[in-house]
């Protein structure tokens, strides 16, 4: 069984149905990408997996290492090794990044009443800040308060580096960044992935293929209208790159409508797409 096993997940917000039966298996050591147009449900999936109370799961199951993930509160999920890099991280004024990060790392590392000793934490924080080339002023600032778009994304990466997740969801971490910044972020993710030596799985959610050129995911999935309609290897991202998103939208729709009837392995262009 995969570390993360998503089975026929249906999700809605109030009356609006967003996920209409998502199936996905992901394990540590794997890099997956989910692509899809705006509104297809990619971000919803990442938020639901992390336990965002805004969304209601109406049916389906998710298992994490054999346990019922949907029964866990967000903080428990995080302590067990799940992580989400948010697309729009919220700011919390008055709370410094340093005190927030210390509380988070302490929770992840199993400290109960006390926090991780300051000196140990500072050493860890300094090393990650240097490695990720983050502004050393950041720990003294309030959580995401007054951060530029790029600073917020880098701060999310810093949190990921500190928390050493087993499965990380990257929710459009590349959006709003210029190409150089995308490369920096991708390099950081890859370094963490390499350092984890097979201990970390990554699910990259993106609208664009450019970050995937750096990340070279093992598996690429395309989400459309609340479902993963096709899955394939890295070449699927290249296919998208060549044809452009709009160019193959119609093809998705064709495939998606046929799936309803048949469910099969289909040929589209040069690539075999596994149709769910």
């Amino acid at each position, binding site marked *: 069984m995969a570390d993360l096993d998503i089975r026929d997940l249906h999700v809605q917000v109030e009356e609006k149905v967003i996920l209409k039966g998502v199936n996905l298996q992901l394990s540590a050591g794997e890099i997956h990408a989910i692509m899809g147009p705006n509104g297809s449900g990619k971000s919803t999936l990442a938020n639901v997996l992390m336990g965002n109370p805004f969304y209601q799961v109406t049916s389906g199951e998710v298992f994490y290492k054999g346990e019922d993930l949907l029964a866990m509160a967000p903080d428990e999920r*995080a302590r067990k090794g799940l992580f989400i890099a948010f697309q729009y991280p919220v700011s919390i004024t008055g*709370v410094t990044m340093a005190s*927030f990060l210390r509380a988070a790392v302490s929770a992840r590392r199993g400290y109960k009443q006390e926090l991780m000793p300051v000196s140990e934490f500072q050493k860890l924080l300094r090393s990650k800040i240097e490695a990720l080339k983050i502004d050393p002023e950041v720990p003294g600032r309030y959580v995401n308060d007054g951060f530029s778009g790029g600073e917020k994304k880098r701060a999310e990466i810093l949190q990921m580096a500190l928390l050493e997740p087993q499965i990380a969801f990257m929710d459009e971490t590349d959006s709003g960044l210029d190409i150089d910044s995308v490369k920096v972020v991708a390099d950081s993710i890859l370094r963490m992935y390499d350092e984890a030596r097979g201990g970390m799985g990554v699910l990259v959610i993106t609208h664009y293929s450019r970050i995937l050129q750096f990340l070279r995911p093992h598996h690429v999935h395309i989400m459309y209208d609340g479902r993963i309609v096709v899955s394939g290897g890295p070449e699927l991202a290249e296919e998208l790159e060549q044809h452009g998103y709009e160019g193959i939208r119609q093809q998705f729709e064709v495939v998606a409508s046929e799936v309803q009837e048949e469910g099969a392995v289909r040929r589209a262009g040069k690539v075999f797409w596994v149709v769910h």
Partner: protein
Amino acid sequence: MAPTNPLGIDLDHYEWGFRDPEKYVFKARKGLDREIVEMISSMKGEPEWMRAFRLHSLEHFFRRPLPTWGADLTQIDFNDIYYYLKPTDGKGHTWEDVPEGIKRTFDRLGIPEAEKKYLAGVGAQYESESVYHNLKEEWEKLGVIFLDTDSALREHPDIVREYLGTVVPPEDNKLAALNSAVWSGGSFIYVPAGVKVDIPLQAYFRINAEKAGQFERTMIICEPGSYVHYVEGCTAPIYTTDLLHSAVVEIIVKEGARCRYTTIQNWSTNTYNLVTKRAVAYRDATMEWVDGNIGSKVTMKYPSVYMVEPGAKAEILSVVFAGKGQYQDPGAKVVHAAPHTQSSVVSKSIAKDGGRAGYRGLVKVYPGAVGSKCAVRCDALILDDRSRSDTYPYMEIDEMDASVTHEATVSKVSDEQLFYLMSRGIRADEAMNMIVRGFIEPIVKELPLEYAVELNRLIAMEMEGSVG
């Protein structure tokens, strides 16, 4: 022993609700009349002018009605209160001299530890008389006076007489009249011209006897160019009947001087805390009030600054927490009575479990106070649907050439913020704590370190069980 609890307040959670057996050298009968006031004055061996001041004040107290705005004060029975208790004979000057029972109380409040690290002088008021006072020698050499007010009256009667009642006259309000009639203890600080006291002067206040009112009178006089930071922290043990705390604080900040007055108030949740605090700031002087209110059943307290000469400045920072059964009605008053005076008021209120917290403030700009500036900011954080926040910002601006701004926000802890923190492994209750701490951080960062720690800890205690 489980106390009866008419308010339904969770007394078990009041950490400092312990109490020592009462040991008093003298305890006056309950009630308030001329005889009691004269007895207080004669027990203290006061000069005739002070006796007259008290009696004059008492008459005004009887004449003056209770305020009809704010919290309901009609439940206070002024005749069911002891107005004077003298706990021990004389005062200790070193820790060793302090009686054991009182020491135990202070030990539990952590006073000696605090003193070792930070305190320059401790004036700890136990009941109506200070029992312990210690002032670092170097400041005595500089001419700084830091005494309980009774001792100051004996040792420096001329200074006390010159300033007493000049900032808060007995006629100011009913509670100020009451305090003026029956006051006991409090701190007296005199800082000579040009002297800067760089370590905060601190005092702990504590009510220990059932139905003992606490009516301390505090005076601070900053001569030109001087600086002092006075810090008081209040805790009171739990009793089953309502306690009354009614202090008067008068501060005079002369030309170019600066005074900061910091209070962390954690009276038990059956205490009426009705305090008149006022400062007068002269040319280019700065007065700063930092006021934290966590405890009490009712707090009505509006630290004020009268800026009476050009260039005077006022800063008032207030943080207030109202839990179950609490009505916190703090605020601020800034009076611009001279040109180019500046004031800033920041108020942060938190309400939870049906508590009511708010801000009541007055900005007054007199004609001719040209170029004056005032900025008021009130932020309220409401933690559940049963709680309430009110803002009453009164403004009387009689000068066109003045800039007055008022900003107010009311917010709830957002689910997005909670989810963000929890998604990093932080438990729900700690996440809520963290957001609340962040909310009051602008005030907390102004506090001396150990008070900042204490305030955060008190808030964390109050927050227990706030996340289902």
